[in-house]
């Protein structure tokens, strides 16, 4: 589904060129849930922009869905740490936003509006926001806004979901709740996910594969398969195999932070 082959990216910083990524290779299969972890400032967000085609690599190649990326990929949904909902639109209207932009929905938007609204309603009930469609974003708590943001990134049925620390600003309980929401949505709709996160437990709980990045300039230095049986319950976070995995990852990151 996604292949990065020896990708490097440099950009012009204030004191000369900065190398954000250096010879990164990564591959993610169709329907796979991949997590990318690493110390802060290691170029994880740059990686996201490369995959979605918002920026072009300085060298190396990025391909998504079998084709070389040469512009915005259009099959991706994105969600970030901030929900970034538009305050002048209701939750439903916010979630409909991608359909007003992506073809073929865009051309049929007026004609099929009722159908799309039903689709929003369906997504809202999957993430546990049934009945909140007519509220405005500022009437919702942070966790609820993030759920809505997740719906917005999924409404156009993307083949690829890109998440950049989506739960980082939430409290621990809400975060775990949303892990389960994400797990369930992913299992029902079957898309490919790249989750960028600082939270090793989050990565271990959700992902099929975890890629560990080095400090800047970023490179993938380790890739681990996570083979806990699915569906996973939150309880596995307290099993020895799970804590061992988190521990190993923790040490890896401590190592690269020192280096």
């Amino acid at each position, binding site marked *: 589904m996604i292949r990065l082959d020896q990708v490097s990216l440099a950009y012009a910083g204030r004191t000369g060129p900065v190398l954000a990524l250096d010879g990164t290779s990564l591959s993610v299969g169709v329907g796979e849930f991949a997590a990318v972890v690493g110390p802060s400032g290691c170029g994880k967000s740059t990686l996201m922009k490369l995959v979605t085609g*918002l920026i072009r690599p300085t060298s190396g190649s990025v391909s998504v869905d079998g084709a070389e990326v040469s512009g915005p990929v*259009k099959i991706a949904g*994105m969600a970030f740490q901030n929900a970034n909902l538009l305050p*002048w639109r209701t939750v439903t209207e916010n979630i409909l936003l*991608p359909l007003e932009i992506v073809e073929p929905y865009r051309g049929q938007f007026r004609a099929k509006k009722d159908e799309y609204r039903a689709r929003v309603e369906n997504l809202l009930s999957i993430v546990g926001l049934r009945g909140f469609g007519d509220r405005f*974003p500022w*009437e919702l708590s942070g966790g609820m806004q993030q759920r809505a943001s997740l719906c917005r*990134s999924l409404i156009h049925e993307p083949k690829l979901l890109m998440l950049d620390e989506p739960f980082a600003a939430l409290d621990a309980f809400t975060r775990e709740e949303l892990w389960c929401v994400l797990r369930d949505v992913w299992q029902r709709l079957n898309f490919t996910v790249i989750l960028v996160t600082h939270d090793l437990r989050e990565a271990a709980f959700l992902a099929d594969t975890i890629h560990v990045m080095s400090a800047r300039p970023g490179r993938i230095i380790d890739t681990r398969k996570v083979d806990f049986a699915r569906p996973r319950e939150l309880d596995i976070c307290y099993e020895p195999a799970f804590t061992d995995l988190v521990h190993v990852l923790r040490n890896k990151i401590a190592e690269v932070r020192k280096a």
Partner: protein
Amino acid sequence: MNKTFEKLAPWLFVVVLFAVWEAACRLLAVPTVILPAPSVIFGAFQRFWGPIVSNSFVTLWTTMAGFGLSVAFGLFLGLVVGWSRAIYRGFYPVMIGFNSIPKVAVVPILVMWFGIGEVPAILTAFLISFFPIVVNVATGLATIEPELEDVLRALGASKLDVMRKVGIPRSMPYFFGSLKVAITLAFVGTVVSETVAANSGIGFLMSQAGANFQMPLVFAGLIALAFEGIIMYAATAWLEQRMTGWAFRSQGSAGN
């Protein structure tokens, strides 16, 4: 009790202000040519009601015409300037330079071009008031959250899409907020121009009355101006509240 007091407070304050003014004038025996007492000014209102109303009306419509021009032009220019960083940076110094010219200095030029009358007043009102609109609209556009723009661009949105769906709605609170400033400035522009070169309008009325030492009428004009200014400000404030209520409400948001 407290609530009713809060509601009445503005009116009460005005009444007290006039009462103190009246008392001071009487107790200190201030000559009318220096500072007329409110009762005398009120007398002037009664005597010159016709001219005051007709000249107020002229000032009102020239202000509104200038304001209308500056809304249309300011909105357009703001959108253009906010569209791209390059235009923003190139245009900004010119705008600053233009805005720092005192507009009174421009009135004689306008009079040379268009003659004495309403046209210079309308143009002065326009020139003095479009700047805050441009700056606010451009700022609203230029400060879109980069992540949100990424979300949309990753979906294949064009610059026009981003502007239509996010930029323009987002800049509306800035736009309506700037109208309150702009209407006040437009009013200043009109009156300045009327005082310098016009044959009608409150500014003209006041400078004529001043030349004839009719201080009560000068002050009556002043009060008429204050009244008109308040009405216009209130109208734009109401419009702002009406059009972009979400921007006010969202400040008391429940979210993190």
